[in-house]
């Protein structure tokens, strides 16, 4: 009994795996914690059960933003006060706003729910109707 309690507490202490993939990846954290039981304790680990970093911009939108910034810098290098330069920076602003809204939409997303949508048969996602 004592050993199982310590095993459980050891599980609780060991935090997220070393290389946590960015969301919305499936939940390797839960599986990997089990494999950590035998490993040495790492100091200064924050207790994280699920990937809790802030959501990233969807990659296509992020690319668009960086492309538009590059473009704006090029356009403005030729003539800083032209209408094209102003329009280019306006496009950067529009895309940055869209990226920020996309990130906000991602915030409410629960990684476990996302994973279970695609993999309902896994252990974490099993539901019981007793």
């Amino acid at each position, binding site marked *: 009994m004592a050993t199982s309690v310590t095993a459980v507490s050891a599980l609780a202490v060991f935090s997220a795996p070393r290389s946590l993939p960015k969301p919305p990846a499936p939940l390797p954290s839960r599986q990997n914690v089990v494999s950590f039981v035998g490993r040495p304790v790492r100091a200064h680990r924050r207790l994280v059960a699920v990937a809790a970093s*802030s959501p990233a*911009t969807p990659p*296509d*939108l*992020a690319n*668009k*933003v*960086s*492309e538009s*910034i*590059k473009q*704006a*810098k090029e356009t*403005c290098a030729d003539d800083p006060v*032209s*209408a*094209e*330069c*102003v*329009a*280019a*920076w*306006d*496009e*950067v*602003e*529009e*895309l*940055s*706003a*869209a*990226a*920020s*809204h*996309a990130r*906000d*939409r991602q915030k409410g997303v629960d990684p476990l729910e996302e994973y279970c949508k695609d993999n309902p048969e896994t252990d974490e996602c099993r539901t019981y109707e007793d």
Partner: protein
Amino acid sequence: MAAFTAHTSAATSLYSPAGTAILLRSRSRAYPTTTTIRVSCSKTVVIGVAADSGCGKSTFMRRLTSVLGGGAEPPRGGNPNSNTLVSDTATVICLDDYHSLDRAGRKAKGVTALDPRAHDFDLMYEQVRAIKEGRAVEKPVYNHVTGRLDPPELITPPEILVIKGLHSMYDERVRDLLDLSIYLDISNEVKFAWKVQRDMAERGHSLESIRASIEARKPDFDAYIEPQKQYADAVIEVLPTQLIPGPGDDEGKVLRVKLIMKEGVEHFAPVYLFDEGSTVNWIPCGRKLSCSYPGIRFAYGFGAYFGHEVSVVEMDGQFDKLDELIYVETHLSNLSTKFYGEVAQQMLKHADFPGSNNGTGLFQTIVGLKIRDLYEQIVARR
């Protein structure tokens, strides 16, 4: 339903012919349908909000829809990139949908989204008027991801229509349709601090690019968007704090927020502190209430704003306890709350929203309550 809308659009925009048409149709049925009765005798209340925060679920919209009841979501089954939010009582439409030039078009002409040449004000006026009169419209959709105009979506007249965008009060005809108009005026330093917070994590952005973007848009902003301030019934002005001396707080965390309310607006009674029509300077922190640095300072007064008489309530500083919030709410009057502590309750409900501990959240919540009050007064009059 399609035949019904076709009939009303064929009819003139005057009330009685459409009204009689509806009665005839309902008489031919065995029972009156609730939808037909609603369209014939209720007019939508239209609120205009001018803000530079793009077309997403901004904090102000979230607070507003929360006060009005129910969460706002994009229309179900529609375009996933739709800018419209629909809740039980309110629909929020984003005026970017009325772009006459898409992103490629604007680039070719060297025109920003702030420029009125990129907007179709005639269509905006026609559709807002149609919704106000109770007719459904097919509103175009501007897709911010692709930068193109998508096929239109159907908007049915809600009880409250909120039009949000940069040009809500630009066109005179649209202005006349608004029952209440609100302008969010963010000062340059605060705007820069907020944009840095928003964009620094974005790959490709740097402080220089953020600054360059703001600077480039400034001329068009000052020429086309700023002048709308004079038409607004309520202005929420966000400035850097005066409580921290010296260079102070350049992260824009502590803010000084003013709520400027026009006098004499129908169904809109300005908020006041202690004594209406006087000038008050109030620091609630003291023996009864203890606040942490930098504290809270309130001011109330009246004056002129672009030639109109206004009342101004101002808050500088931050709340960090529930006590402070309730204490302040007790001393403000004309809040249009339905019960004591409603403002505090609304602020706490959304404690994770930005601005929940300062004047932005407080005044946005109060404006939301004022809108609800205005709507109820208009409905009661019918």
